[in-house]
Protein backbone atom coordinates (compact mmCIF):
# COMPACT_ATOMS: atom_id res chain seq x y z
CA UNK A 1 0.00 0.00 0.00
CA UNK A 2 2.77 2.41 0.97
CA UNK A 3 4.63 1.54 -2.28
CA UNK A 4 1.56 2.54 -4.36
CA UNK A 5 1.19 5.68 -2.24
CA UNK A 6 4.87 6.53 -2.74
CA UNK A 7 4.71 6.30 -6.53
CA UNK A 8 1.36 8.11 -6.56
CA UNK A 9 2.94 10.97 -4.60
CA UNK A 10 5.90 10.87 -7.02
CA UNK A 11 3.48 11.26 -9.94
CA UNK A 12 1.86 14.26 -8.22
CA UNK A 13 5.26 15.85 -7.59
CA UNK A 14 6.20 15.30 -11.26
CA UNK A 15 3.01 17.11 -12.33
CA UNK A 16 3.82 19.96 -9.92
CA UNK A 17 7.40 20.14 -11.26
CA UNK A 18 6.10 20.40 -14.86
CA UNK A 19 3.60 23.11 -13.84
CA UNK A 20 6.39 24.94 -11.94
CA UNK A 21 8.64 24.87 -15.02
CA UNK A 22 5.76 26.25 -17.11
CA UNK A 23 5.12 29.05 -14.56
CA UNK A 24 8.81 30.02 -14.35
CA UNK A 25 8.89 30.15 -18.16
CA UNK A 26 5.91 32.53 -18.19
CA UNK A 27 7.47 34.65 -15.43
CA UNK A 28 10.71 34.90 -17.42
CA UNK A 29 8.72 35.98 -20.49
CA UNK A 30 6.85 38.72 -18.65
CA UNK A 31 9.56 39.97 -16.22
CA UNK A 32 12.76 39.10 -18.07
CA UNK A 33 15.89 37.54 -16.58
CA UNK A 34 15.95 36.99 -12.80
CA UNK A 35 17.52 39.86 -10.81
CA UNK A 36 18.34 40.05 -7.13
CA UNK A 37 17.04 43.58 -6.45
CA UNK A 38 14.06 45.07 -4.60
CA UNK A 39 11.94 46.35 -7.57
CA UNK A 40 12.25 43.00 -9.35
CA UNK A 41 11.32 41.03 -6.22
CA UNK A 42 8.24 43.24 -5.69
CA UNK A 43 7.12 42.66 -9.28
CA UNK A 44 7.77 38.95 -8.81
CA UNK A 45 5.73 38.81 -5.58
CA UNK A 46 2.62 40.17 -7.35
CA UNK A 47 2.94 38.03 -10.48
CA UNK A 48 0.00 35.59 -10.78
CA UNK A 49 2.23 32.73 -11.94
CA UNK A 50 4.54 33.27 -8.98
CA UNK A 51 1.55 33.20 -6.60
CA UNK A 52 0.55 29.93 -8.30
CA UNK A 53 4.05 28.56 -7.66
CA UNK A 54 3.82 29.50 -3.97
CA UNK A 55 0.37 27.90 -3.56
CA UNK A 56 1.56 24.71 -5.23
CA UNK A 57 4.71 24.82 -3.10
CA UNK A 58 2.64 24.40 0.07
CA UNK A 59 0.75 21.47 -1.49
CA UNK A 60 4.04 20.02 -2.75
CA UNK A 61 5.49 20.20 0.79
CA UNK A 62 2.51 18.24 2.08
CA UNK A 63 2.94 15.54 -0.60
CA UNK A 64 6.73 15.24 -0.19
CA UNK A 65 6.29 14.93 3.58
CA UNK A 66 4.52 11.62 2.91
CA UNK A 67 7.60 10.05 1.26
CA UNK A 68 10.06 11.66 3.67
CA UNK A 69 8.18 10.23 6.66
CA UNK A 70 8.35 6.74 5.14
CA UNK A 71 11.81 6.74 3.53
CA UNK A 72 13.66 9.28 5.68
CA UNK A 73 14.51 12.92 4.88
CA UNK A 74 17.49 12.30 2.58
CA UNK A 75 16.15 9.23 0.74
CA UNK A 76 12.74 10.91 0.44
CA UNK A 77 14.30 13.91 -1.28
CA UNK A 78 16.33 11.75 -3.67
CA UNK A 79 13.23 9.71 -4.51
CA UNK A 80 11.78 12.86 -6.13
CA UNK A 81 14.75 13.23 -8.47
CA UNK A 82 12.54 11.00 -10.64
CA UNK A 83 10.93 14.26 -11.87
CA UNK A 84 14.03 15.12 -13.95
CA UNK A 85 13.77 12.19 -16.41
CA UNK A 86 10.00 12.72 -16.64
CA UNK A 87 10.58 16.32 -17.77
CA UNK A 88 13.27 15.14 -20.20
CA UNK A 89 10.99 12.51 -21.75
CA UNK A 90 8.19 15.11 -21.99
CA UNK A 91 10.65 17.56 -23.64
CA UNK A 92 11.67 14.85 -26.11
CA UNK A 93 8.10 14.29 -27.27
CA UNK A 94 6.63 17.79 -26.99
CA UNK A 95 9.60 20.15 -27.56
CA UNK A 96 11.59 17.87 -29.86
CA UNK A 97 14.72 17.98 -27.69
CA UNK A 98 17.42 15.49 -28.63
CA UNK A 99 19.55 13.63 -26.15
CA UNK A 100 22.83 11.80 -26.56
CA UNK A 101 23.80 8.41 -25.12
CA UNK A 102 25.07 9.89 -21.82
CA UNK A 103 21.67 11.55 -21.20
CA UNK A 104 19.87 8.24 -21.80
CA UNK A 105 22.26 6.46 -19.39
CA UNK A 106 21.61 9.25 -16.83
CA UNK A 107 17.83 8.83 -17.16
CA UNK A 108 18.19 5.05 -16.73
CA UNK A 109 20.38 5.48 -13.62
CA UNK A 110 17.87 7.88 -12.00
CA UNK A 111 15.01 5.46 -12.75
CA UNK A 112 16.90 2.49 -11.25
CA UNK A 113 17.91 4.61 -8.24
CA UNK A 114 14.31 5.78 -7.61
CA UNK A 115 13.01 2.19 -7.87
CA UNK A 116 15.73 0.94 -5.49
CA UNK A 117 15.11 3.70 -2.95
CA UNK A 118 11.34 3.06 -2.88
Amino acid at each position, binding site marked *: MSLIGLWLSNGMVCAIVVFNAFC*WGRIKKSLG*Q*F*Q*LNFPFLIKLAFNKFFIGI*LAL*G*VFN*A*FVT*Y*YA*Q*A*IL*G*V*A*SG*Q*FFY*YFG*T*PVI*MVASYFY*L*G*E*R*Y*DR*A*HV*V*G*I*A*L*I*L*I*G*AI*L*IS
Partner: protein
Amino acid sequence: VAVRNVNSSVLKILQKREVALWLSNGVQCGLVAMNTLSWGYLIKARGDLQLTVPFITSFFLNPFFWTAMLTGFISVILSYYAIAKIGLAKSVFFYHTGAIVVILTAYFGVGETFSLTQILAIVLILTGSVLVSRKGEGEIKK
Protein backbone atom coordinates in the same frame (compact mmCIF):
# COMPACT_ATOMS: atom_id res chain seq x y z
CA VAL B 1 33.12 13.46 -19.23
CA ALA B 2 30.56 14.77 -16.72
CA VAL B 3 33.25 15.19 -14.02
CA ARG B 4 35.52 17.00 -16.51
CA ASN B 5 32.64 19.35 -17.45
CA VAL B 6 31.92 20.14 -13.77
CA ASN B 7 35.65 20.70 -13.11
CA SER B 8 36.00 23.11 -16.04
CA SER B 9 32.85 24.96 -14.88
CA VAL B 10 34.33 25.35 -11.39
CA LEU B 11 37.63 26.62 -12.83
CA LYS B 12 35.84 29.16 -15.05
CA ILE B 13 33.79 30.41 -12.10
CA LEU B 14 36.95 30.73 -9.99
CA GLN B 15 38.71 32.60 -12.79
CA LYS B 16 35.84 35.09 -13.01
CA ARG B 17 36.11 35.67 -9.24
CA GLU B 18 32.35 35.49 -8.84
CA VAL B 19 32.46 36.26 -5.12
CA ALA B 20 28.73 37.04 -4.90
CA LEU B 21 27.97 33.75 -6.56
CA TRP B 22 30.09 31.73 -4.15
CA LEU B 23 28.60 33.66 -1.25
CA SER B 24 25.10 32.84 -2.46
CA ASN B 25 26.12 29.18 -2.83
CA GLY B 26 27.39 29.16 0.76
CA VAL B 27 24.12 30.70 1.98
CA GLN B 28 22.19 28.20 -0.15
CA CYS B 29 24.08 25.27 1.41
CA GLY B 30 23.23 26.64 4.87
CA LEU B 31 19.57 26.96 3.86
CA VAL B 32 19.49 23.42 2.47
CA ALA B 33 20.94 22.16 5.77
CA MET B 34 18.30 24.10 7.73
CA ASN B 35 15.60 22.78 5.39
CA THR B 36 16.70 19.17 5.93
CA LEU B 37 16.86 19.68 9.70
CA SER B 38 13.38 21.27 9.72
CA TRP B 39 11.86 18.36 7.79
CA GLY B 40 13.66 15.87 10.02
CA TYR B 41 12.41 17.47 13.25
CA LEU B 42 8.90 17.90 11.79
CA ILE B 43 8.75 14.19 10.93
CA LYS B 44 10.04 13.29 14.41
CA ALA B 45 7.38 15.53 15.98
CA ARG B 46 4.39 14.57 13.81
CA GLY B 47 5.15 11.06 12.50
CA ASP B 48 3.50 9.60 9.39
CA LEU B 49 1.12 11.68 7.29
CA GLN B 50 -2.54 11.41 8.27
CA LEU B 51 -5.40 12.94 6.35
CA THR B 52 -7.25 14.16 9.44
CA VAL B 53 -8.13 17.72 10.42
CA PRO B 54 -6.16 17.68 13.75
CA PHE B 55 -3.05 16.36 11.97
CA ILE B 56 -3.24 18.87 9.10
CA THR B 57 -3.87 21.73 11.56
CA SER B 58 -0.93 20.78 13.77
CA PHE B 59 1.20 20.22 10.64
CA PHE B 60 0.62 23.74 9.35
CA LEU B 61 0.95 25.30 12.82
CA ASN B 62 4.30 23.64 13.48
CA PRO B 63 7.17 26.19 13.30
CA PHE B 64 9.42 23.59 11.61
CA PHE B 65 7.00 23.46 8.68
CA TRP B 66 7.33 27.21 8.12
CA THR B 67 11.12 27.10 8.57
CA ALA B 68 11.23 24.36 5.93
CA MET B 69 9.01 26.35 3.56
CA LEU B 70 10.95 29.60 4.03
CA THR B 71 14.41 28.05 3.67
CA GLY B 72 13.25 26.04 0.64
CA PHE B 73 11.80 29.16 -0.97
CA ILE B 74 14.90 31.36 -0.42
CA SER B 75 17.05 28.48 -1.66
CA VAL B 76 15.05 28.35 -4.92
CA ILE B 77 15.40 32.15 -5.35
CA LEU B 78 19.19 31.86 -4.87
CA SER B 79 19.42 28.99 -7.35
CA TYR B 80 17.64 31.20 -9.93
CA TYR B 81 20.21 33.90 -9.15
CA ALA B 82 22.98 31.39 -9.93
CA ILE B 83 21.23 30.33 -13.17
CA ALA B 84 20.80 33.97 -14.25
CA LYS B 85 24.44 34.75 -13.41
CA ILE B 86 26.27 31.81 -14.97
CA GLY B 87 23.65 29.86 -16.96
CA LEU B 88 21.84 26.61 -16.33
CA ALA B 89 24.63 24.23 -17.42
CA LYS B 90 27.29 25.76 -15.15
CA SER B 91 24.97 26.19 -12.15
CA VAL B 92 24.58 22.40 -12.02
CA PHE B 93 27.65 22.25 -9.77
CA PHE B 94 25.85 24.36 -7.14
CA TYR B 95 22.76 22.17 -7.43
CA HIS B 96 24.77 19.06 -6.60
CA THR B 97 26.58 20.60 -3.63
CA GLY B 98 23.08 20.96 -2.14
CA ALA B 99 22.49 17.23 -2.58
CA ILE B 100 25.68 16.43 -0.64
CA VAL B 101 24.60 18.85 2.13
CA VAL B 102 21.24 16.99 2.38
CA ILE B 103 23.01 13.65 2.92
CA LEU B 104 25.47 15.03 5.50
CA THR B 105 22.77 16.92 7.43
CA ALA B 106 20.42 13.93 7.44
CA TYR B 107 23.21 11.71 8.77
CA PHE B 108 24.83 14.03 11.33
CA GLY B 109 21.91 16.38 12.17
CA VAL B 110 18.80 14.20 12.03
CA GLY B 111 20.58 10.94 12.91
CA GLU B 112 19.36 9.03 9.86
CA THR B 113 21.11 5.84 8.89
CA PHE B 114 21.39 4.53 5.35
CA SER B 115 21.15 0.93 4.20
CA LEU B 116 23.49 -0.38 1.48
CA THR B 117 20.59 -0.31 -1.02
CA GLN B 118 19.81 3.32 -0.16
CA ILE B 119 23.47 4.34 -0.55
CA LEU B 120 23.63 2.56 -3.91
CA ALA B 121 20.37 4.23 -5.01
CA ILE B 122 21.61 7.71 -3.96
CA VAL B 123 24.91 7.19 -5.83
CA LEU B 124 22.99 6.06 -8.95
CA ILE B 125 20.59 9.03 -8.76
CA LEU B 126 23.43 11.54 -8.26
CA THR B 127 25.49 10.03 -11.11
CA GLY B 128 22.41 10.00 -13.31
CA SER B 129 21.53 13.61 -12.52
CA VAL B 130 25.12 14.74 -13.28
CA LEU B 131 24.85 12.94 -16.65
CA VAL B 132 21.44 14.37 -17.58
CA SER B 133 22.34 17.91 -16.55
CA ARG B 134 25.47 18.15 -18.69
CA LYS B 135 25.11 20.25 -21.82
CA GLY B 136 25.85 17.44 -24.31
CA GLU B 137 24.28 17.48 -27.74
CA GLY B 138 20.74 18.34 -26.66
CA GLU B 139 19.09 20.62 -29.21
CA ILE B 140 15.65 21.57 -30.43
CA LYS B 141 14.58 19.96 -33.71
CA LYS B 142 13.66 22.47 -36.42
